[in-house]
């Protein structure tokens, strides 16, 4: 089943990349989220899968009584999800503000910081 999930991760990454290459900022954001989900799944899979046994020690026990899912990648992913969410929120609001003041939602037309047709540098000393 690890391999099936590995394939799924590939699908996530591919779609994320594809959307990031589209020029619409909102699509790119969605692509970013999907890519982030793909990476989270990748960490999850790389930590090897265990079905349905949560890494929680049953009450009253000192140690779990059987194999449990690998907790470390879960903690890492949790951190990554949170960070990804923070980034997503910021980029979303940024896209919104950029749309407001640049009147552009398309990266093709966002050309203020690096203007189009800048004149050549002066040939003088």
């Amino acid at each position, binding site marked *: 089943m690890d391999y099936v999930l590995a394939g799924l991760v590939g699908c996530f990454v591919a779609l994320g990349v594809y959307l990031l290459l589209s020029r619409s900022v909102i699509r790119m954001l969605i692509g970013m989220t999907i890519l982030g989900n793909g*990476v989270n799944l990748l*960490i999850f899979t790389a930590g090897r899968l265990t079905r349905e046994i949560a890494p929680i020690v049953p009450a009253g026990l000192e140690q779990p009584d059987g194999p449990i899912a690998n907790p470390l990648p879960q903690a890492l992913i949790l951190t990554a999800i949170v960070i990804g969410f923070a980034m997503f929120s910021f980029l979303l609001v940024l896209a919104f*503000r*950029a749309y407001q003041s640049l009147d552009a939602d398309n990266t093709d037309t966002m050309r203020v*910081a*690096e203007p189009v047709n800048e004149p050549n540098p*002066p040939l003088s000393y």
Partner: protein
Amino acid sequence: MVELPPAMIETLTSASDWVVVLPLVLCLMGAAATLMLRKSGGLTFIFAVLIVCAVIACEVTLLLRVLDSGPLSMTMGKWLPPFGISFAADIFGAGFALTAAVVTLAVLVYAQGERGAEDGRDGFHSMVLLLLAGVTGSFLTGDLFNLYVWFEVMLIASFGLIVLGGRPAQLDGAVKYGFLNFLATTFFLLALGLLYGLLGTLNMADIMRVAPSANPAAMAGVAALLLLAFGMKAAAFPVNAWLPAAYHTPPAVVSALFAGLLTKVGIYAMMRALVVLLPASRDLLEPVLVAVALATLLVAPLGAIAETNLRRAIGFLVIGGVGSVLVGIAVPSLAGVSGAGLYIFHAILTMTALYLVAGLIESRTGQTDSRHMGGLYAASTPLSVLFFVLVLATAGVPPFLGFWPKLLLLQAGLGEGSWVGSLVAVALVVNAVLTLIAGSRLWAHIFWRAAPEGVVAPAPAPSHRGAWLRLGATGALVAIVVAAGLWPNGLFEALRFGAPDLLDPSRYVAAIGLAGGAP
């Protein structure tokens, strides 16, 4: 029953060891406190300055201890490494963290001069402290995932800073900056996941121990991913586009802070990851590294020549500097890594100062484009001196600081005795000449030339308190650049003491004190 010894550190931690982690914690808590105080008027500035001074004090202590007795580490929560998160300072980490704090102090003072009436309501001081926290954490951490976290702290703080003011160009720049940088950290995370799947550990010292026995092909893939991720953070060619797109848009103080800190952290992380952690994979990737270093060295100064927007041009100089450090990674001899380390130190100071001077120039002329500037040489002696010294330092002209790393890197390239090394050396030389051409043209256009037709001559020197703060902060940085260039002996002492740790990290590993002994 569980035995405790293998899980926890049993010795008492002396309070003086806390200097490893205190700078970071102070920054974080300082940021939190300034955020809470932000509606209480001008307090935040004083508070932030006090915090940064305390951080500097801690880091000076740390540096002295490292110089005295080698790398120093602390593992959080008393858990034995690799179970807990280690913080470990070697000479580079401690030195860069200190430099970063000094630069931040200068920037804070400058910003106070520039922003004047504006208080900290917009969270500026919190974000500067958070940025410093991220940078400090990245320099000092001994755990890869933790490095990712501090990267993100740095990144989001820089997002906040880059949009301060919200002019359209800033937003455009921020979109590019934001997407590309976030993507870089995502790639880093991707590599981390794979690395964990391969090695089962995240502690740097532990990675050094187990990496040699892992599947070399997969390790090479992971190393390539790390190279890409850190290359993006460091703005190495060809994935450097975000830097010239964004650095000139925010207020000059913010540019200065970014130029001093962000790319340096990226390139330092690359050095750590490839030279120290995965040397075997680095060897496999060497052709790529050489190519990237060459391209960065050669293409970046062209941008500086072509650009008329002053701060954009300086952005290309920053990239050129990254190319120089890449040389040290591509040719990791002792001279190479020493030169790279020294260059990072130099670049943190010089690039920050350069942007601060650019800010001063912009406020004096009211222009951002060098095509519309002129006449500053006659109008402002201090500004001329500062800019001139910095341009020379950037181009590596002795006796300024930039010369020494260039010397070491050239020695590394030529000492290699191979055609690759010579190629790298030639590229370094060409880079120096091109940088000088770019710098001298900027100098001629902005300073020497009379103000062009239709442009008002530079305003007379303002003499209020803000102007002095700004000039003083910049001057202090430049003074450090000059002094360190004239008396570099201390730096070389430190390098002689600390640089071998990069090539043979046994002292570093020993300082971290892994469970199960050293490799």
